[in-house]
């Protein structure tokens, strides 16, 4: 990733939960990332969001903390760490809306050659009410993404 990233990352013992602190004009915001095993034990879901002061989590809020790219680069680093520990697992990630999916796609596009040397990357699409995976194509709209270490 070409962007700056947050260098301090907190982790749980089983490397399924991670945290880092977003810093910007809105102050410090605790971000939490979690991987959960899905019904298919080869696939782990990636979700992330804000950890609020009351301990609750919010994956829809928009921070406007002026560090969007830094957050994405940090989440990408966390995926790299997780897949180092689980090299045979797929990670699925789906944005909360099309704007976020577009953002993820742009982040993948910007680093595609670097990512492709280490990861298999697939886009998720709906066709005739069934989900399909296809090899990620730059600039194509996807509903979600699947990634696995090569």
């Amino acid at each position, binding site marked *: 990733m070409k962007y700056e990233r947050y260098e301090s990352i907190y982790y749980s013992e089983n490397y399924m939960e*991670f945290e880092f602190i977003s810093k910007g004009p809105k102050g410090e915001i605790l971000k939490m990332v979690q991987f959960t095993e899905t019904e298919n034990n080869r696939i782990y879901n990636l979700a992330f969001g804000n950890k609020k002061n009351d301990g609750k989590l919010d994956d829809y809020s928009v921070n406007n903390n002026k560090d969007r790219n830094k957050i994405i680069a940090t989440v990408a680093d966390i995926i790299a760490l997780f897949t180092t520990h689980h090299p045979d697992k797929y990670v699925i990630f789906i944005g909360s809306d099309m704007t976020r999916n577009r953002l993820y796609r742009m982040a993948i596009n910007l680093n595609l050659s670097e990512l492709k040397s280490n990861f298999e990357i697939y886009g998720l699409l709906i066709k005739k009410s069934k989900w*399909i995976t296809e090899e990620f194509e730059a600039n194509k709209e996807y509903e*979600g993404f699947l990634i696995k270490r090569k």
Partner: protein
Amino acid sequence: MKVKDKKIARAAKKMGIKLIYKKELDKYSGTILFPEKHNVANEIIKNLKKPLP
């Protein structure tokens, strides 16, 4: 606590990341913190037309 998985420790070092163990995070293990996203992922996986690549 030192990072137990040497591969992760090496990868973090290479990426310039300072990994810090946080015991508080262990309490979330086994709890799905973002159930909506998790359910969407399961729904997609159930309805995948082709098996995984």
